[in-house]
C-alpha cells in the first residue's frame, strides 16, 4: 500500500475488512503520555498502578484508539479519509508490551460518501479489548 493509497466509496463493499497490529511498548506509552500532557498517572507510574485493579501499568484508551485511526487512514478507506464520529467501549486492559490487533469491517454504506465501520481491538490474538463503530467519509 503506497503513501497515498485510498479506496473510493464506490469500490467498497459491506463486509470488506482490514487489520493493523502494533506492539504497545513502554517507549510508545511514555511518548503518548508526553503528547497529551499526562505526567503522573497509573499509565506511567508503577507505584500508582499498584493501587489499581489492574496491578500493573496499562495503555491509555485514547492511545489504542489512535491506531484505529491509523488503520482507517492507511488501509480502509485510506488516504484523505475524514473522521466524522466514533463510539467505543473498553472491555479489557492492554498492558505494556502487549501486541494489539485492530480489526476493521465495513458495516454500512451511508450517503455523502460515508461509511460505518466496525472498529474492534484484540489483545494478542484472542481477547476483545475494545469494540467500537466509526463513521468516516471517504476521500473520493
Amino acid at each position, binding site marked *: 500500500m503506497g503513501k497515498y493509497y485510498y479506496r473510493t466509496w464506490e469500490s467498497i463493499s459491506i463486509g470488506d475488512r482490514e487489520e493493523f497490529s502494533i506492539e504497545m511498548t513502554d517507549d510508545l506509552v511514555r511518548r503518548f503520555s508526553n503528547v497529551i500532557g499526562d505526567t503522573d498517572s497509573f499509565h506511567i507510574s508503577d507505584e500508582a498502578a499498584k493501587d489499581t485493579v489492574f496491578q500493573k501499568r496499562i495503555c491509555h484508551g485514547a492511545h489504542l484508539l489512535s491506531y484505529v485511526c491509523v488503520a482507517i*487512514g492507511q488501509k480502509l478507506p485510506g488516504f484523505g479519509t475524514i473522521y466524522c464520529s466514533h463510539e467505543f467501549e473498553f472491555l479489557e486492559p492492554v498492558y505494556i508490551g502487549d501486541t494489539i490487533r485492530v480489526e476493521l469491517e465495513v458495516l454500512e454504506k451511508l450517503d455523502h460518501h460515508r461509511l460505518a465501520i466496525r472498529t474492534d481491538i484484540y489483545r494478542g490474538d484472542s481477547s476483545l479489548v475494545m469494540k467500537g463503530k466509526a463513521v468516516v467519509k471517504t476521500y473520493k
Partner: protein
Amino acid sequence: MKFLTMEDLSIGQEASVTRTISESDVYLFAGVTGDQNPAHTNEVYASSSSFSHRIAHGMLTAGLVSSVLGMQLPGPGTIYLGQTLKFCAPVYIGDTITATVKVAELIPEKNRVILDTVCTNQDGKIVLSGQATVMPQKSAA
C-alpha cells in the same frame, strides 16, 4: 495527586484544560501513532484539501478529554470505559482548545459516571462533542 471518588461527585460538576495546539504537538502525535496523513503533516497538500490548512488529528483533541478525566475529574485512578465522539469542526495548528468534562449522570451501584465531553476553540465554536463513561477510583485504594 488528588482523585475524586463517587461520593465526591455531583451532577453538573465540571473541569477543563485549555491548550494551544502547536505544530510540535501534531508532529509528536504523528510520530507516536504513525499517523502521517498529509492532512496533518503536509501544508502544500492540505492547502488543496477542503480544510485549506493542516489540521490536528481528531484523537489528539480527544486525548485532551481523556487527560482531563484522568488528571482532574474524577482524576487519578479513573478507568475509561467508553466514549462517543463527534467531530464537528476541524482543529487547526495554532488553535486554542478548551476540553471540558461535566458530570451528567451518576450510577453509584455500578461505580460509574457519565460525563458530557466537549471541546471548543478560541472562538467558542464546538469542535468535538460526546459523552464519556468512566469508573472513578474507590476510596479504599
